[in-house]
């Protein structure tokens, strides 16, 4: 029995320019040869195919490593334009479309001028303590083929430094005095003061936008422009389509100047429901999921082909104390305004038990407002220890004693009762809250749990309508993140607990002004915050990411999980049909 099918070489493989061209001739030769092969007995055909495949593998042929990736996401990237971004979903997509001048290096250090990885900028040089010059990579191109120039950089910084566009970035770039071009490929930044994170501020907050496409569009009209519907960037992936409410698709830019991406097609598949997300992975539709609950990990591990990848984060969960009196922010809170009582509550919290119970291996106990990845973290420091006897002693010293024998300490007839607000939909905080309640009860503090709907919880938190709030925050990689949440100036903004210590503000300002402050200097700031106990820092989160095992990864940057997938590939011999079938579009 012989094979009877015939083979037609697709024209795209031979790039035929006409019937008489050399490639058309090649096409005919190939067709003829393959049809001859197909007419052979099956065992001969199989042996030939096998030998061809073996040769391809031995030669390390690239096609074996190309692939498609379907990332299941819980939120939609509906507008991945850097100046309009809100939410991580948009950010994830924008990070594949738009490049920065450089990226944080593997050590995630934010100080000094080294330790960053070049992207649009090939190199940068410091001229003096106030001036840095960036040289752009001349190979960099926008997806429409236009070269990336210094004009794009000055245009982008102009947009981002406008407080009406992005107040937070404008604030971060407030020390940038001037951005000017020196030729087509050099941009010079001048600062109004010397400090250790100048380069970090320049590279972290600004993604470079195409001036030739956006200069004529006022920022107020950008969200409704054609550019917003099909953004043109300079990153490793270009925009293909968005099917609202369903998916967003990107395709690799083969001529990407830092290297051709092996993952040729990336689909962000939207599924809001956590069960649906998990099922999409288990039935093979999805390849990756950014985060799953610890309880779902065993199900994933049972499924062949999938693996759980722990990814440390910059997120910390903390019990935030409101230091202001309820209904009258001008007065201190009658209980929590006392620093010693706050310290007693911190001592009464067994954070190790909480983390093990609710997070298992997907969390650690932080020293203070420092996540696992912060470069200034002291890995050996444990922060406030669990010491219930010390907590009881401090409370007693502050006049809180159990005078009526009901197990709750009181002062002047007023029992020590606090209310803990937390979002009911959050599994981690929901699991920890009752444990904290029982731990504090052991030192005579009654904690009433207030489980709230997410938006209601957020509203009360932002308005400062809480006594103790169970918050979780993704902190910035820079130690200046401490300033955002705990300085007096941030009251009314991110500092919703109303904690204010001028000595801390001064310490932060002094440390930030150092030319290159080290971890030890920032540790002093952290210790000051821990001593003042404006919050109990309960857990530092590790994300449980799910990934198909066929992907060969380089690393997963914790600030943007998918931004490095252009360096990923599919393990040889592990390709699925979707990896081979990328020309279906």
């Amino acid at each position, binding site marked *: 029995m012989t094979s009877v099918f015939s083979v037609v070489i697709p024209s795209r493989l031979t790039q035929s320019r006409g019937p008489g061209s050399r490639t058309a001739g090649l096409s005919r030769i190939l067709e003829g040869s393959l049809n001859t092969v197909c007419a052979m007995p099956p065992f001969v055909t199989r042996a030939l195919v096998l030998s061809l495949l073996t040769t391809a593998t031995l030669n390390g042929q690239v096609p074996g490593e190309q692939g498609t990736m379907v990332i299941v996401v819980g939120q939609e990237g509906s507008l991945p334009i850097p100046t309009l971004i809100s939410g991580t979903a948009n950010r994830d997509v924008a990070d594949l479309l738009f490049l920065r001048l450089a990226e944080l290096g593997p050590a995630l250090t934010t100080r000094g001028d080294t330790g960053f990885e070049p992207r649009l900028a090939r190199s940068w040089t410091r001229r003096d303590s106030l001036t840095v010059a960036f040289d752009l990579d001349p190979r960099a191109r926008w997806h429409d083929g236009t070269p990336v120039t210094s004009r794009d950089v000055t245009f982008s910084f102009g947009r981002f430094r406008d407080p009406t566009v992005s107040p937070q970035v404008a604030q971060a770039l407030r020390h940038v005095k001037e951005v000017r071009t020196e030729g087509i490929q050099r941009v010079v930044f001048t600062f109004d003061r010397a400090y250790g994170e100048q380069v970090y501020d320049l590279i972290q907050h600004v993604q470079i936008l195409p001036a030739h496409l956006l200069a004529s569009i006022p920022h107020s009209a950008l969200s409704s422009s054609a550019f917003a519907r099909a953004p043109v960037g300079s990153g490793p992936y270009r925009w293909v389509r968005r099917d609202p409410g369903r998916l967003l698709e990107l395709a690799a830019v083969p001529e990407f100047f830092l290297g051709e991406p092996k993952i040729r*097609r990336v689909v962000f598949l939207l599924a809001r429901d956590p069960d649906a997300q998990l099922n999409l992975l288990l039935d093979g539709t999805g390849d990756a999921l950014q985060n799953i609950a610890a309880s779902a990990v065993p199900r994933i591990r049972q499924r062949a082909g999938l693996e759980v990848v722990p990814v440390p984060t910059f997120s910390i969960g903390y019990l935030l104390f409101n230091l202001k009196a309820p209904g009258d922010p001008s007065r201190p809170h009658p209980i929590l305004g006392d620093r010693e009582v706050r310290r007693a509550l911190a001592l009464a919290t067994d954070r190790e038990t909480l983390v093990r119970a609710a997070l298992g291996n997907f969390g650690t106990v932080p020293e203070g407002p420092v996540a696992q990845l912060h470069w200034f973290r002291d890995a050996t420091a444990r922060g406030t220890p669990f010491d219930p006897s010390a907590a009881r002693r401090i409370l007693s010293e502050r006049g809180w004693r159990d005078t009526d024998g009901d197990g709750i300490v009181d002062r002047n007839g007023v029992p020590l009762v606090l209310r803990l607000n937390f979002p009911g939909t959050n599994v981690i905080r929901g699991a920890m809250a009752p444990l904290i309640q029982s731990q504090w009860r052991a030192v005579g503090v009654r904690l009433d749990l207030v489980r709230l709907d997410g938006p209601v919880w957020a509203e009360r938190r932002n308005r400062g309508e809480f006594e103790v709030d169970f918050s979780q925050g993704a902190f910035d990689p820079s130690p200046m993140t401490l300033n955002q949440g705990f300085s007096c100036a941030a009251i009314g903004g991110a500092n919703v607990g109303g904690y204010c210590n001028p000595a801390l503000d001064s310490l932060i300002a002094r440390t930030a002004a150092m030319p290159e402050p080290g971890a030890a200097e920032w540790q002093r700031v952290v210790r000051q915050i821990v001593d003042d106990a404006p919050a109990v820092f309960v857990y530092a989160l590790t994300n449980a990411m799910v990934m198909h095992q066929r992907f060969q990864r380089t690393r997963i940057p914790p600030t943007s999980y998918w931004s490095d997938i252009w360096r990923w590939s599919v393990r040889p011999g592990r390709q699925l049909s979707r990896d081979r079938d990328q020309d279906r579009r």
Partner: protein
Amino acid sequence: MTRWLVRRLTHAAATFLVVTILLFLLMRLAPGDPLSRLVDQQQMSADEMAVLRARFGLDQPLGRQFLTFMTGLPSGNLGVSIEHYPDRVSTLLRERLGPSLLLGGVVLVLNFTLGIWLGVLQATHRGSRLDRWLTRLSLTGYSLPSFWLALMLVALVSLQWDLLPAAQMTDPLLSAEAPWWERTADIGRHLILPALTLSIVSLATTMRYQRTAMLEVMRLDFVRAASARGLSATRVRWRHAWRNALFPLLTLLGLWLPFLVTGSVFVEAIFNWPGIGSLAAEAILGRDYPLLQGTAMLAAALVLTGNLLADLGHLLLDPRTRTA
């Protein structure tokens, strides 16, 4: 007839207006920050929040927001979604309408064909073993929570036996240029489980309604007379009895019309079906006022239309109601 229609349309329009105003006010008065999801993801300064509030008009006084909303209404402008910014609510509703109509339509057709047939079958075999088993089965289906049934079907059919996809309406990797039969087959495969879930839990209602109505009619003299005239059992059953037992079903159909679009929030969420139901669920969770308002208004309009059509059907099919 015309006067009746004009009166009913006027009533429906007035009801719709009142519902719209109430929806607007109640949503804004309910506690909860519509920007909460964004705040939970990243630290935001007061200025940043102010920019976002201005973007969605949330910084305006309630009266101004209401005026903006009402003036946009006649032109179909329902505002911009907060969760799906910069998509307009009307665009989102239009995009989700197709999948909802497809799922709801299939379930409705199944209910009103299979359900009617089984109901008639039960009535004509009253008290038989078939009647008893169909009653047990339909009530079992009716008593199952739809979300539980959906999860069970996914666990067995999709994950255990690998027969059908667990979620989605289409294969995300299927090309938009794929031939129509391939795309239709793909949608069909994805449609089976959600449609089956919704049909199993809702079929009992139609069956019970139809069974009761048929039993009522089959007792009447004209049915006995038809049989006495020597007409075949099938002709008596479908031509004489069933046509008169149709009216309760007409009312039921009117009540079910909104289901065509709103579907089941839980089932759509579990199957990741991109319909209006899941859109409404997202809007509720995120306090996306404009989107929530849009979906609720659509549901209200469908309820009113369903009732109107049911009444109109009665009027056209039953001469007695016309004289009344």
